[in-house]
């Protein structure tokens, strides 16, 4: 089980996160917490919730970075959850088979009934996408909202991960990244979507879209306007020139 499925269907469900529009509002993180707290991995325990060191189980966390120096740089808000890697060492290191990758859609899950809480998978995940629940003694993680995306009790249009459904900035997309003709794959191709830490070879399914750059980007519908307006007169002559500007009401 812990060995990767040898027959992976072409389907690779995952998320595409648009760093160009993410405003860092944490809506995805909290919606994720909310859904999953009562979902298949329930509960997402919180420790010292009102105390000095509050912490808890979260499947999605929003980081903030600055890239580049001074005004030429950018602040980038950066949500991160499990990337449902194609080569997930978090799965292969698992001694119990609790950690597995689904053959049918590529989703990486933990079977909590098998998990012994050795935490090795969290060491094996370069991205910090595994969450140990100290109270339950088992590992938990983003399920890609498997109990939503296939949930027959939800209307078809709402069968989306909670984080995607809530994002106010349209910065999260869900779909089949194994299918090059899917909307998400096209988006990735169009916008130059990239992998996190490609050098480690985990081949994440989730992709990130880069922020657009530069003062002129998106500028005024693709046309660079002049660098400055050309005055049609000096301050004194202006007033006179307007004397002839006759417009009826």
């Amino acid at each position, binding site marked *: 089980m812990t060995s990767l499925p040898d027959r992976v269907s072409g389907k690779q469900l995952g998320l595409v996160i648009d760093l160009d529009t993410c405003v860092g509002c944490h809506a995805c993180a909290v919606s994720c917490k909310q859904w999953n707290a009562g979902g298949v991995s329930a509960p997402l325990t919180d420790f010292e919730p009102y105390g000095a060191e509050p912490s808890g189980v979260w499947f999605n966390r929003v980081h903030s970075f600055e890239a580049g120096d001074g005004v030429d740089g950018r602040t980038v808000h950066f949500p991160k959850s499990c990337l449902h890697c194609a080569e997930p060492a978090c799965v292969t290191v698992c001694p119990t088979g609790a950690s597995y990758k689904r053959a049918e859609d590529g989703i990486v899950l933990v079977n909590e009934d098998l998990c*012994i809480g050795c*935490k090795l998978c969290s060491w094996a995940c*370069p991205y910090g996408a595994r969450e140990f*629940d100290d109270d339950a003694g088992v590992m938990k993680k983003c399920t890609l909202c498997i109990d939503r995306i296939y949930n027959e009790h939800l209307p078809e249009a709402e069968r989306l991960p909670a984080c995607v459904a809530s994002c106010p900035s349209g910065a999260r997309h869900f779909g089949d990244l194994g299918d090059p003709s899917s909307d998400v794959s096209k988006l990735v191709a169009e916008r130059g979507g990239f992998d996190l830490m490609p050098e480690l070879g985990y081949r994440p399914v989730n992709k*990130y879209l880069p922020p657009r750059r530069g003062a002129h980007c998106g500028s005024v519908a693709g046309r660079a306007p002049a660098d400055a307006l050309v005055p049609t007169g000096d301050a004194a002559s202006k007033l006179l020139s307007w004397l002839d500007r006759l417009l009826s009401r």
Partner: protein
Amino acid sequence: MHPALSVIVFTVLSGAGYGLLFLAAILAIGGVLPAAFWFDGCVAVLALAMISIGLSSSVLHLGRPERAWRAMSQWRSSWLSREGVTALVCYPAALMFATGWLWWADSMWWRLAAAITAVLAAATVACTAMIYASLKPVHQWRSAWVPAAYGVLALYSGCLWLDALRLGFDVPVPHLNLAAVALALAGAGIKIAYWRHIERTRSPATPESATGLGHIGKVRMLDPPHTQENYLLREMGFKIGRKHRRKLRRICIGLGFAAPALLVLIADFLAPTAAAAPALLAALLAMAGLLIERWLFFAEARHTVSLYYGAEAA
């Protein structure tokens, strides 16, 4: 990486135990170790005790210890699972070897058991090492020096215990003192080389690659996702100061290698019964040194997740 006491104790004790078991088995097969009831018994008991204490410590470290048995199932892919399997099957082999040593030391079966014990002991240590060495996110572990160190240090600590016991029981084993000194030198050499290696190399992962934002410029954390520590930071965000690590490395070499080597050398000049005390002290000091070594092994390891939490390199 968080230096968890349970894992440190586990790897150091079980390493020494398997080292001792391995040496005993090999030397016994080679006929270098004579069959001597108390001595053999003590070697076996000490080895198995260290292994068992170590293993229980690691089991107790689990979130669900009662399910530990499940860890045997994934030997095809998981070094941890393999470690569990080899550790487990090593027990009956070791018991057969130990009892056989006392009573049937000449039989084929005993030789086979001893050989299997040696192989499994070595394999268990190798698996343990590979658990770490296979983790791509931890650059400091992903190195051939790691299995080398685990192997040599297991042998080294096992050898010191064997030496102490044989001197205590006055069992003659030629060159064992010198072998211990040689292993100390090798161990220290490997550690020093390892430290140089981790000083001089960096993980290929950087804040820039972790975020994919390097094309914009240098990437620095602005805000963490949560203002208080979370599991990931507690488990994998451990940081150790430069000065602190230097000091501990020196203590580790002094206490764990130089002092024991010196003591064993001294012991070499003493009568066996008088030599037992320094040899025992050498073993104990080495164990202390190795605890520090192992603590550093974790404390100095930086997981790539820390790149998301402000670390400039992993």
